[in-house]
């Protein structure tokens, strides 16, 4: 087995792997092979992937090794990019040219894109090794990864528990050593909540920070694309690689992209960290509360000032979110009609085009997607439009103004990422509304457009707890500083789950 006696290559952070590649201590082929070996060991129990492309991964690794060898011979270590030769996995709603991209839906089971998403192209240009595609809730609708048409993903910290969702495969893969880093998507918490449940770092960037070209749309005014990684430095590396204006996504922002890595070690001395009182009421488990409070004391110890702030309307955020998200989802899902691509049922004698579309959609979509399309259709239908959708859009502005006001009094807002640690499969509520309450802390950032990070801050019931840090528009740098301070004081950056016999 490759890797040092203490830590296998498959468990190292991407920046550690990069340093070893630069110094010629290891090749990308060795790293990639160890990750593939790890996939063979644990995938049967974790189920993080829906597609693994060994051949393409090993070929990319060879190409990376050739480039690294050339740069080293030329004495140009600086020419070895931070992601060159690093194994990554992409959520299965991110288009990969020639590699099946299904959104984990029967509707797109055999869909093979003819082009790369913008993030995929950027990772390829940076020389990252794309291992395959990660499991997710169908069309990113869910918070346990159980609405995937393929299989369940299990939490690497406890296989009896959910990994969270919808980017559950991404978070589980990074936690279990099945990829060094990952790209997920976040519409209402889908990067942060699974990151919290799996003990890894997840960042939902500012709306518009990362191009969404080639990423299957769920709710277009809320969707974001961002990294899931083992530590905060890796998060900064990944964000720097994928952020920036892209002409093919008209909502991508022209704002300059800083080198986020420069902010990792700046500390939090003098930063004002806001505690929204409404986020610390009842509803969160005692273990989560204790871990978050310890993290707050640690931030104070590191020189941050803790201030109390208020988000008076935040109790409405979840309702506003589900109205906006389902309305937009019902519109986006309309393109999936089984005509130009997608599922088409057998035995369709006598059907007209409308019947065919209804049958394709009725059979191609799972229950949660149907439920949300129906709710969105209700919200947008005449007679309900103003009472529900119009009201939600007006409330959204008030909520966004609340966030801006709070962030004028401090540099960032902290809260738990989720009200509990990952729950057991048999504890999952049957009631969809109870499951939507998982998103109570996360949807606000999507509604307001601001960036938010989940960083592990401790354990409860031997399961990781995530701290959420929300910042000002385009101020991911502050989240990285605060996240790193939390990671340093909690020691969680080095914690690894024990699945497959790996010690903590």
């Amino acid at each position, binding site marked *: 087995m490759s890797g040092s006696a203490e830590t296998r290559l498959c468990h190292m952070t991407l920046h550690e792997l990069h340093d070893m590649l630069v110094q010629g201590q290891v090749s990308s082929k060795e790293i990639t092979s160890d990750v593939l070996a790890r996939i063979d060991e644990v995938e049967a129990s974790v189920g993080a992937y829906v597609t693994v492309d060994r051949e393409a991964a090993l070929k990319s690794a060879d190409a990376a090794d050739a480039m690294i060898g050339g740069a080293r011979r030329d004495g140009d270590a600086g020419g070895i990019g931070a992601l060159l030769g690093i194994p990554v996995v992409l959520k299965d709603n991110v288009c990969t040219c020639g590699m099946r991209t299904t959104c984990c839906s029967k509707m797109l089971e*055999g*869909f*093979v894109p*003819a*082009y790369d998403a913008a993030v995929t192209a950027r990772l390829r240009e940076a020389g990252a090794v794309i291992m395959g595609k990660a499991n997710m809730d169908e069309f990113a609708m869910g918070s346990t990864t159980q609405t995937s048409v393929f299989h369940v993903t299990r939490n690497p910290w406890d296989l009896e528990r959910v990994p969270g969702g919808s980017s559950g495969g991404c978070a589980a893969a990074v936690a279990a050593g099945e990829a060094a880093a990952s790209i997920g998507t976040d519409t209402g918490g889908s990067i942060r909540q699974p990151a919290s449940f799996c003990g890894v770092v997840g960042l939902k960037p500012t*709306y*518009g920070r990362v191009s969404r070209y080639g990423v299957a749309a769920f709710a277009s*005014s809320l969707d974001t694309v961002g990294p899931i990684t083992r530590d905060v430095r890796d998060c900064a590396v990944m964000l720097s690689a994928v952020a920036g204006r892209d*002409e093919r996504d008209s909502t991508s*922002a022209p704002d300059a992209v800083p080198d986020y890595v420069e902010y990792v070690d700046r500390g939090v001395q003098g930063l004002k960290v806001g505690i929204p009182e409404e986020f610390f009421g009842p509803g969160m488990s005692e273990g989560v509360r204790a871990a978050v409070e310890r993290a707050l004391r640690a931030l104070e110890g590191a020189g941050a000032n803790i201030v109390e702030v208020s988000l008076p*309307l935040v*109790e*409405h955020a979840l*309702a506003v979110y*589900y*109205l906006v998200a389902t309305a937009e989802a019902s519109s986006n899902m*309309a393109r999936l*009609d*089984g*005509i*130009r*691509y*997608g*599922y*088409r049922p057998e035995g*369709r004698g006598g059907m007209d*085009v*409308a*019947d065919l*579309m*209804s*049958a394709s*959609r*009725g*059979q191609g*979509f799972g*229950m949660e997607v*149907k*439920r949300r*399309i*129906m*709710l969105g*259709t*209700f919200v947008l*239908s005449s007679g309900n439009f103003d009472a*529900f959708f*119009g*009201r939600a*859009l*007006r*409330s959204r*502005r*008030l909520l*966004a103004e609340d966030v801006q006001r709070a962030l004028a009094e401090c540099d960032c807002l902290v809260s738990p990422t989720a009200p509990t640690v990952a729950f057991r499969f048999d504890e999952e509520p049957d*009631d*969809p*509304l109870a499951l*939507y309450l998982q998103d109570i802390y996360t949807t606000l950032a999507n509604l*307001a*457009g601001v960036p938010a990070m989940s960083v592990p801050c401790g354990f409860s019931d031997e399961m990781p707890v995530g701290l959420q840090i929300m910042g000002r528009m385009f101020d991911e740098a502050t989240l990285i500083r605060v996240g790193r301070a939390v990671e340093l004081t909690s020691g969680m950056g080095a914690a690894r789950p024990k699945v497959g016999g790996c010690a903590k």
Partner: protein
Amino acid sequence: MSLSREETSRLADLARLSLNDEELARIAHDLTEIIDYMEKLAGIDRAHVRPMSHVLGTVNVYRDDRAEPSLSQEEALANAPDRQGQFFRVPRIIDAGEAGEA
């Protein structure tokens, strides 16, 4: 409010979703519960507020109008569930009375 079976069925038609009886009943029940929760919003005073559909201030973002390479016909048809030659194939759209045999 409670969503009737008929109303749910009408929504399914609008959404072009064929749902079986069991799905219709379950969705009618779930939507009723979810919509009740959404009605909490009635408590916010917002008549004066401008709706917010988008968080960035950008309006009408255009790029230069120039031709760029696009997908080939074969690539565009590659994922089609049914095709005939260079076309996507669907059931007849125009009534037989108008168009004769398709």
